[in-house]
């Protein structure tokens, strides 16, 4: 006896649901901007400034003048945005 072909609505629904989720994932990538990266793109020299500052801090940290290093270095774990 031929069986009735039943359309799987649930499967179609899931297909559309995943397609929407993928579309959203794509849009999020296109629209979300990282504020720090945006600032850095406008001023790439900030990379160099950060590098120079890093070297200065290192020289204080590993140099002889420990008292000066304590005064200059931020507390451990502090994040300093380059162009705050």
């Amino acid at each position, binding site marked *: 006896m031929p069986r009735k072909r039943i359309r799987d609505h649930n499967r179609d629904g*899931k297909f559309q649901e995943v397609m929407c989720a993928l579309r959203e994932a794509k849009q999020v*990538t296109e629209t979300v901007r990282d504020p720090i990266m945006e600032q850095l793109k406008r001023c790439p020299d900030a990379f160099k400034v950060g590098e120079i500052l890093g070297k200065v801090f290192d020289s204080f940290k590993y140099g002889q003048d420990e008292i000066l290093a304590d005064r200059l270095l931020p507390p451990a774990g502090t994040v300093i945005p380059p162009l705050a």
Partner: protein
Amino acid sequence: MIGFPLAVSIPRLKGVRWRCCTRWAEGPAATLGMSLLRLGICQPSDWSGSAVDFVERGFNRFCRENGVIEAKKVWAGELRIADSLFELTEQERNQIEAGREGASEQLFLTGDYEAAASIPIGETLRRLEAEDELLPAAFYRVFVANLYKWMRVYEYVDAQEHAEMWMEDLDDEELQASVYRKVETEIPPCIQKHSARMAYKRARRLLQEIKPAAPLARQLIRHVLEMDACGLGHEHAWPGHLNEKDVPGISDWLMDAESSRPGCLITWYENDAINACFDEDAQHMGENGPCQPNVVLSIRLDRPIRKLDEDVRRVFDHAGAMLQSLASAAKVVETIRELYDEYLREHRLQPGLPVEPGASGVRNE
């Protein structure tokens, strides 16, 4: 409630993916994922909340369905989808992504081999010759031509080129002692005599028509013809096929990069003259730049849906054919190795002959 104090405690994280996907990776993966979903390669049930995971699940299933498990028995390598042709360090990747406007608009399917699979074919050719004088040359021609569709093959022709180059600088005495002379003399007569006149089409016709008596020969021919059927209509997707219009900067990269590493080494017997030439060549591979991948296919993501789907279908058809063909090739190679091991066992028992290492031991090294 306070538990017993422990020196080390490791939290158990349930439902958390073991990988961090950046938003730069999610964007291109989402575009590819939508196409794979439309083509039926990915399924809605693959969705776990990440586009990269979604593509990976679909791609893994696709590879399994096309025989990757059988192929991996012989071919150690990887087939991967990436947004760059080159291996990048984390720092290099961050620099590229920081300088890029928006998400990547191109993906690459690349195929490469970690090691050259050893194929000591001499004994197999000897057995085939017992069936028909032309059969070894025909079998060799079709087998190698099909391997070439998916990888660089190191065979006696490469060894001949290597030997000729090095023999130029040797005097007569050195030549006598050199292994390079053996490259030519060790070529089996059945190949030396018939290979030049054994064109691919003629060889395939001969394999289709011949009815060998030995079941082993029938089995080898069947698997080689399977390989051939899987690869029908496909050409080797060398990186050199990519053009500057599709992949800006490819010409410079190809100029700086070295040839692909071979995916297999076809010798007559392990540790023969071909093997010696390969070892010398292999020492210098990758010294002057990165080695090109064996297979590269590009997918442009910034195309209309219909074109994108056609492009993705083309790339996945190629990958599927490659895996199916390599799965059949793996069966051929396993038989070739069994015959070689049998040859070693027989010859080791004869008095007066030096004991040779087992083939599996040599391959493991």
